[in-house]
């Protein structure tokens, strides 16, 4: 079953003093997310990730296109009972305590009074805030606020959870904690749609990812697809600087320190390089593959964009 289906979703903003110019923020996005998937929505800042989430949450209205969540229109209030949302760098009512905030959001989501009390206790325990008592949120650290943010997003036990840059601005400990929480939701079978520009987080958590840049979708696939889309490289180290001249054409880059040579070579050229080094009687020290990361894919696509723009 499809948890999210986005069809031709577009958003343009009117800009300029007279609001006559149109600036596209999202260009005809088509995307589907299956139930139970953890889906990463990747892109640099300003790519259109938050715009997409705002459209899905009904915070802004689309210029064209539509979106369904769990088979119903995204704006349907019934759908909103089944979804949870954590905005980017959220701000909460800082005059409230964590239990008060969660109680407020639970009421808005239609959770009964009896269920609220039990659920709030369980959730504060789950996000590691059971000992905060009635301390107001204005006294919370950023990491604590992010955990409260995740708690409010799941207070009503939603089926689909949307997280906008959930690790943004957190220190390594905070990021680890939030990652663990998301992993817990994933293990519980929830559908998770999260946007991020931190690629390692997507690599660690996502079943599939989509890459968006300048409001346009650039690719969708499982994380391994993206790895293989990036040309595999191999790092080779040997002793014998004189051999470099014979292999220069095969290399991506090289560093020479005295007699020690360290190069990276496209995997396709590896056999020829090793053969040449043998002929040159160079002493091989190591051969190690370098796996392409989402970041490489990301950078490669961005560079392609820039080249096209220059042309």
């Amino acid at each position, binding site marked *: 079953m499809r948890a999210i289906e986005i069809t031709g979703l577009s958003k343009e*903003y009117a800009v300029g003093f007279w609001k006559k110019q149109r600036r596209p923020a999202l260009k005809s996005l088509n995307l589907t997310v299956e139930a139970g998937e953890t889906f990463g929505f990747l892109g640099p800042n300003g790519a259109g990730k938050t715009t997409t989430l705002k459209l899905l949450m009904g*915070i802004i209205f689309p210029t064209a296109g539509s979106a369904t969540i769990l088979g119903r229109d995204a704006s349907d209030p019934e759908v909103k009972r089944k979804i949870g949302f954590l905005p980017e760098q959220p701000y909460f009512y800082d005059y409230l305590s964590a239990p008060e905030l969660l109680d407020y959001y639970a009421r808005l989501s239609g959770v009964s009074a009896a269920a609220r009390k039990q659920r709030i206790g369980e959730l504060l325990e789950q996000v590691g805030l059971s000992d905060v008592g009635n301390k107001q949120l204005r006294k919370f650290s950023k990491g604590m606020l992010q955990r409260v943010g995740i708690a409010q997003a799941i207070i009503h036990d939603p089926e689909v959870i949307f997280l906008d840059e959930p690790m943004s601005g957190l220190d390594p400990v905070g990021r680890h904690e939030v990652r663990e929480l998301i992993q817990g939701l994933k293990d519980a079978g929830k559908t998770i749609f999260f946007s991020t520009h931190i690629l390692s987080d997507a690599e660690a958590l996502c079943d599939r990812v989509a890459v968006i840049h300048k409001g346009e979708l650039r690719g969708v696939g499982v994380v391994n697809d993206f790895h293989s889309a990036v040309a595999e490289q191999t790092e080779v180290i040997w002793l014998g600087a004189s051999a470099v001249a014979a292999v220069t054409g095969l290399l991506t880059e090289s560093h020479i320190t005295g007699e020690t040579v360290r190069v990276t070579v496209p995997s396709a050229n590896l056999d020829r390089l090793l053969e040449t080094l043998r002929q040159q009687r160079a002493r091989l020290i190591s051969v190690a593959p370098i796996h392409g990361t989402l970041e490489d894919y990301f950078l490669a696509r961005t560079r392609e964009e820039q080249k096209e723009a220059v042309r």
Partner: protein
Amino acid sequence: MTSRLSAITWNTFREAVRDRILYNLVFFVLLLVASAPLFSQISIGLERLMLVNVGLSSISLIGVVITILVGIGLVSKEIEKKTLYTILSRPVRRWEFIAGKYLGLLLTLVVNAALMTVGFYVALLIFVGSLKRADAGLLVAIYFILLQFMIMVAITLLFSTFSTPVFSAIFAFALFVIGAFGEDLKNFATLSHGITKWLALAAAYIMPNFASLNVIARVAHDERVSMQLVAFNTIYALLYSLAVVTAAVMIFERRNLK
């Protein structure tokens, strides 16, 4: 729906209380106490008149100031701080949010005015020496002040849905001042001719008429306020507020919250 509306109303009230809005009560008490030497210098009989004027005008003015200060941020602050994102992603209709915010600030003002009223009657008892039957008539003026708040909250809320806090404050205060001179605007219309007459008349009917809601001078002189005026003002305030809140909802329903 009721649960969501009451949740937003209660949270708006709680925010105002925790932001120490009710501290203005201390100011109100200090004002009455500071006025005491003044009352003692006035000839017997006039001190009540003085106290009623000072007390009721303060309840009205302090309430309007709170309305503007809090009201201008009711929606714009939620947009600016993005707290609205986590509300609109729930099964909350936009009109429910607006209605809840309206009722929340109104509740704050009613509680505030109720506490001030108690303080006012205590002051009356202390400075005048006793309460008489006619003093109960002062409650009509306080009721009209509450009707005034109903309209002012609606107006500030309307501005808050599309304008910045600074402009909202300026617009709302300007409307309050114009509304206070509503009767003068009507008088001006009757004396004018041609297009000016129609413009003045249109403005007199479109602008809130706070003049007819101000009976402080009348009750201070123990004049009775007719039930007809009470009924008319009640219906007027209800309809005017409803129209303005509806306009606020219509704007907010279409607004992209960047």
